């Protein structure tokens, strides 16, 4: 077994996800979880979160205005974006780790 100290982001990743989903914030837990999962959200948040997850480059000022006009504060928008970004990157990361396990036969 390799005795060197090797880096591992698992615990940091778990802590980050717990912080943004369960930590102190303005957006409801349901909205934060929905943004993370890109699932189970009502409009206009649903369309916006899917854009953050899959086409972040194309987000415009108008997209933010739509959320603000729907009554969300800037802090709620901030939290929704952070949860959506971490959620999509987490799905990619876990997909790749599963591919690594499949390739090596180890978990």
């Amino acid at each position, binding site marked *: 077994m390799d005795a060197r100290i090797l880096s591992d982001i698992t615990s940091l990743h778990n802590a980050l996800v717990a912080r943004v989903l369960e930590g102190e914030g303005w957006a409801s837990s349901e909205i934060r979880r929905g943004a993370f999962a890109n699932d189970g959200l009502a409009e206009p948040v649903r369309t916006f979160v899917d854009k953050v997850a899959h086409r972040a480059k194309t987000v415009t000022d108008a997209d933010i205005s739509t959320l603000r006009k729907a009554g969300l504060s800037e802090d709620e928008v901030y939290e929704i974006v952070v949860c959506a970004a971490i959620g999509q990157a987490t799905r*990619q990361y876990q997909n790749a780790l599963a591919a690594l396990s499949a390739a090596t036969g180890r978990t």
Partner: protein
Amino acid sequence: MRLAILDHGHGIRTKAMFILIRVFSGHPVVDAVKLALYRPSFYRAGGLTQEAMRGPSDWSVADRELMAAYVSKINETEFCVAAHTATASLAFNDGAKVSAALADLDSAPLTEALRATLRMLGKLTRENNIDAADIRRVLASGVSEHQIRDALAVAFAFNVTDRLADVFGFAVDDPAAINAGAKYLLARGYR
């Protein structure tokens, strides 16, 4: 930035620090720093990014900075491409190699191990999925299982950061500020 809170919503100590940064660096505070210091009890990804980019690994700091630039190029995130192209160029002491890798991965003067790894990170970033065959190709190029894990950690960090930079509308700094930022990231890291 698209949310005023990210420009002006920081606490008084952080605002005072921004003034010091402006005075001593001679550059405006970059948007990535404003984001990192906004409500740090909520997002605070610096520790994870630091571990991925500077933690113990068989990849060099330069290799990992190139991975960050490459993932950001696939996401078309101008701010992060500029910042990490500059940081990787400085870390390799070879800007031509970094430019070549970002322009055409197949012909760039890289080890096969790094090339195969960047290709895998590119596919994951673009398509959100990779499979065991993609991983086997990277292993066959001489990359260890742990190096794959380390590269995936870099991709995770930048697939988050790129989305935030694009959605919040990070301004791309002028070249002098970008180079100052690159020197800072090599000297001090991401914390």
